């Protein structure tokens, strides 16, 4: 039997046992515990460890953030502030700069480096105002033909009272919709945490890339564990189950490429990480250069409409 078959077999037996309500607390518990411990041993194979290592590196406190890349990638950077309605959201930065000699528009989540900045930027969790600001800059990109670069790095959209009152769900939906309408080349790269709706809001791009140690997921490992395992401490198991690492995202057809990082993680050599990111962004934009705008849009929608696995 292969390891996979062993695992499936164990799981089926365990699940069979756990559904014998009459026998709960009797001998079955011992058998169930034994099967569970066998499963736990299987679950901590090398692949699962690698996934958890990505989770840790993606959240590493010294990992380069959007503005660290901006200063190394873009010349003549001009940050654009505010959504023209209510606020300037520090968790999502936007602006214009020159990449490889041409003007691009950039949107990206920004976490803070020290305690004060982290609080000011809400740990990279944007309010609806942040997505409104991003949409404003997307509109500028569309109007002037600037390619759009998105750098995604958020645990998720901000989960607060004001964020809800200001329409968090609608803002995320409309930001995606704005990206599906653009007729300019768009490239997104997950540079750390690609957390759920807050991430995909700015990642509906022609080319979606992930840095080698970034993660992209529908929910945080802790959130998933709290809901499905009813214990946030089971985050490692949850991550192994929903596989947020770059390789699995590539295998599932969710991203178009993986951007290499310096050995041991981007934080060990930010200059090299930036050079590798630059090369990947420039290459992706060059591939899109000669495609007419309406064709870009058509292909982008066709790509996302093809995502999913069903019978």
């Amino acid at each position, binding site marked *: 039997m292969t390891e996979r078959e062993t695992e499936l077999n164990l799981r089926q037996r365990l699940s069979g046992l756990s559904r014998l309500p009459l026998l709960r607390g009797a001998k079955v518990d011992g058998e169930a515990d034994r099967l569970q411990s066998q499963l736990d041993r299987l679950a901590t194979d090398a692949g699962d460890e690698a996934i958890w290592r990505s989770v840790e590196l993606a959240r590493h406190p010294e990992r380069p953030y959007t503005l660290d890349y901006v200063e190394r990638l873009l010349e003549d950077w001009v940050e654009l502030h505010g959504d023209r309605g209510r606020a300037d959201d520090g968790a999502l930065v936007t602006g214009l700069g020159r990449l490889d000699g041409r003007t691009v528009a950039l949107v990206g989540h920004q976490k803070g480096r020290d305690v004060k900045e982290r609080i000011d930027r809400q740990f990279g969790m944007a309010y609806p105002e942040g997505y409104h600001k991003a949409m404003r800059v997307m509109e500028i990109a569309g109007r002037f033909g600037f390619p759009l670069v998105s750098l995604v790095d958020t645990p998720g959209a901000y989960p607060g009272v004001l964020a809800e009152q200001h329409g968090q769900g609608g803002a995320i939906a409309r930001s995606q919709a704005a990206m*599906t309408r653009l007729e300019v080349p768009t490239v997104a790269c997950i540079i750390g945490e690609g957390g759920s709706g807050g991430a995909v809001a700015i990642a509906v791009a022609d080319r979606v890339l992930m840095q080698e140690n970034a993660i992209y997921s529908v929910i945080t490992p802790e959130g998933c564990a709290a809901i499905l395992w*009813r214990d946030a401490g089971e985050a490692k198991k949850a991550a192994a189950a929903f*596989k947020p690492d770059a390789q699995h995202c590539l295998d599932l057809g969710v991203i178009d490429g993986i951007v290499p990082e310096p050995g041991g993680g981007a934080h060990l050599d930010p200059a090299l990480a930036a050079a590798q990111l630059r090369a990947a962004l420039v290459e992706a934009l060059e591939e899109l250069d000669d495609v007419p705008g309406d064709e870009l849009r058509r292909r982008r929608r066709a790509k996302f409409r093809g995502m999913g*696995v069903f019978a």
Partner: protein
Amino acid sequence: MSETRIDVQVEHKHAPPPETAKHPNTCPTCGSHYRDDELAGALWVCGHCGHHFPMRARARIEWYADEGSFAEEAMDVRSEDPLSFFDLRPYSERLAEAELNTGLGEAIVVGQASLDDHPIELAVMDFAFMGGSMGSAVGEKFSRACDAAVERGVPLVSVTSSGGARMQEGILSLMQLPKTVCAVEDLHDAGVPMITVMTHPTTAGVLASFASLGDVTIAEPGALIAFTGPRVVQQTTREKLPDDFGLAEQNLRFGHLDGIVPRGEQREYLSRVLRLFS
């Protein structure tokens, strides 16, 4: 609505069992109890206090659609288990159980129908199927409903009820957000109207995608409509929540809805809107 849906209990595997749940036919707001046929006759609305009980997809379709006009589409689309996902039980087993318990193949039913002789496409979610969660099959069925509406040039009436993306499909469930957004954008480009009815609850991934993109959007009274639900907001931020946090009434006040329409008046409302767009 005096009921607040704020629940701040912390989930833990050693936590004591929750208080015994009320019977599904007992009104959680006023305690009135009904027989099945009484509830069905009142469209699952409490005759005493107006509380809206959950309404199953098939019952709603039967009520919205002119008699005999509904023709279901994409019935054969089923979820797969691309990650061989296993939490406390295998995903494939949860799917089989949901199908058995609900008689539905997935958490959404789509098809063509007419409402007061206006031809429409219907896409109706059912919370009873794994919390109305959106995985690849739900995303595909909704997208096909958009295409069918475009093809026939008829409005899409979409009824949402969902806890969000289906975690068991991992990142692929997140990708159903942009997928359904693309489908709605194609609908918008074709000049086909979309009317959305949000029912309790419409949250997370579904709210952050197609549910928020209707041309006309209404909700049922008391429905929870939030990207992040009250419990998670409370746990994460320790903020004091307003009494009507996330409810339809608050959403209307803050400008996220065109109206709150009690269930009994929805058919007439939809008919009027369809007339205006025809």
